[in-house]
């Protein structure tokens, strides 16, 4: 190669490299604010909490100086605490299941609607998110309490003699959570329904499938990614929710976030509270991973889609 050509080639390469570096720098600059907040106000405190959860409890200063596994052992070996874990996961799973069932038809109808109607319907679905969590929960208290709307109505109709216990049960907690979380599911399922080519549905009918069969053979499998995304959101929000179980479940329906709050804010036992918090994160993560594994196995095509 001639020397002149060589330098030209070198210049070109240099410029290319410069451009590439510039592009990378831009990317990092754009991510910087979010990364900063994430790092300093989420990961770092979480890391300190993790370390704290391996410390002993000191009644004087809160956090002791000794290292120990006792916080985790205490939790895992106590049937009461395990019961709370089970209840937390159970409530979250039921909430997720109920939201899927009630959100699917809503999402389906909204994605079929057109123009302005669609916007209004979407707004309607999102409306629970516009009201403060606490106010909404007290609304449910008024409806579900012993002399609340439901019990008064049923008694005045003469259908029951003594009020039903609706409030401060797992039932009331699930109702409250479904109410606030179902918009997430609707939006997520809507997204995946809208991505389906309508002629695929027609093709199914054309080949002889009833609407029922088309739903289970075509529509449902193709919307599984949306259901999955919605489930992950709803499950992780409900497994870690605090306000709704605190108001609608109270001390009778203790969940893990409530336990953590008790240990940290009431007992001032930060190490134990930290341990419970970490177990909650662990359980939620494991459940979500297991869920995605099962889903991936049951519907191979979805991954390919």
């Amino acid at each position: 190669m001639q020397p002149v050509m060589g330098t030209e080639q070198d210049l070109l390469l240099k410029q290319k490299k410069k451009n590439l570096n510039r592009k990378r720098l831009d990317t990092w600059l754009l991510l910087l604010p979010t990364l900063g907040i994430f790092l300093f106000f989420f990961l770092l405190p979480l890391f300190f909490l993790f370390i704290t959860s391996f410390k002993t409890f000191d009644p004087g200063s809160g956090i002791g100086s000794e290292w120990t596994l006792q916080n985790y052992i205490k939790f895992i070996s106590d049937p009461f605490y395990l019961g709370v874990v089970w209840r937390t996961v159970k409530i979250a799973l039921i909430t997720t299941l109920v939201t899927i069932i009630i959100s699917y038809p809503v999402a389906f109808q909204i994605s079929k609607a057109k123009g302005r109607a669609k916007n209004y319907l979407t707004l309607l679905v999102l409306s629970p998110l516009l009201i403060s969590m606490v106010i909404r929960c007290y609304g449910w208290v008024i409806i579900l309490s012993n002399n609340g709307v439901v019990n008064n109505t049923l008694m005045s109709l003469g259908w029951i003699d003594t009020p039903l216990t609706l409030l401060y049960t797992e039932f009331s907690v699930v109702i409250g959570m479904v109410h606030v979380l179902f918009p997430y599911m609707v939006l997520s399922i809507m997204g995946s329904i809208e991505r389906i080519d309508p002629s695929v549905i027609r093709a199914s009918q054309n080949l002889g499938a009833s609407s029922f069969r088309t739903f289970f053979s075509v529509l449902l499998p193709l919307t599984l990614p949306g259901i999955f995304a919605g489930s992950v959101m709803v499950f992780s929000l409900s497994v870690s929710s605090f306000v709704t179980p605190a108001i609608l479940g109270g001390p009778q329906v203790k969940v893990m976030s409530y336990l953590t709050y008790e240990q940290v804010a009431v007992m001032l036992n930060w190490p134990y509270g930290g341990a419970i918090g970490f177990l909650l994160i662990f359980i939620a993560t494991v459940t979500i991973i297991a869920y995605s594994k099962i889903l991936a196995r049951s519907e191979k095509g979805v991954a390919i889609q």
Partner: protein
Amino acid sequence: MSYLRLENVVKTFNKTEVVKKLSLEIEKGELMSFLGPSGCGKTTTLNMIAGFLEVDGGKIEVDGKPVHLLPPNKREMGMVFQNYALFPHMTVFDNVAYGLKLRKVAKSEINTRVLEALEMVRLAGYEKRYPKELSGGQQQRVSLARALVIKPKVLLLDEPLSNLDAKLRQEMREEIVDIQKKVGITTIFVTHDQEEALAISDRIAVMYEGRIEQVDEPAAIYNHPETDFVSQFIGEVNRVQGKVLETYDDQKSKLHFFGNEQIVPVRYTRNSEVDFFIRPEKIQLSLANSDNAGFETKVERKMFLGAKTRYILKAQDKQLVADVSNTVLNPNQIQEESHVFAYWNPEDLLPSRKAR
């Protein structure tokens, strides 16, 4: 007795009639094209035949039995969609087997029939692939196999080639005709591409604004268009205005245009002004006006198009487009801005039906 019959079929969207009392009869085994510009109602009509849209009037019969009240899954029609519409979560095999499974066909028979169908569309060996792993042409072939494997009464093709590139489109259309003839299935082919329709159809129904303008064999549609729309939509035409000088008893008239006179085989009223069409490839050019048959034009532009050359001509301020084969006339002989003589055979004139 025709196999598929549409009788006064009407479809209304928001108070606008998009299909207006459409009647059509299609013979068994025939390949009928619905050809027309977008918005002419061809796809709407197809969707009514398939059952995706309800008819707002009239009836549709297959083999003498009315079907227009049946839901789409009971009509036994195979449809191939423009965008293939394969089930993305199923393998090629499962896509093709879908209709058979719904018909509760025995497993071993499903297997043989699916493999046969895939063999027919030259996709043997692709059973385990997912649609996403296939090219557009392959996906469309799967779609065709899926529609044919259930042995439908009618095959409906909704612009099946429009998402493919030009070369593949030509290949696929020949393949579709081959398969259609082999299976002998009554087929409706919806397209806006006239070349496609002319190439493959037994008959073409040219549609415009919700009506059928003309139903005929491709050559008849091209050479004897019955309406102005058909003349202008199928192939290209030059619109020429002329004056009727003389009329004769034997269905002939003497026309005057561009300072030239010609006796044409059409009956006109004497002294009236008339419009007629002439196709670019029917115009012949020559450097000398040998037997006074032609009229003088100026060559404004010429475009080399491979086998032919397109000349944009000007005759008495009116523009004419002429396509002349390069084997008939060497384009180097004719320069832009020069004058040539144009003429045509009187039989090639397509009279306009519109009164002026």
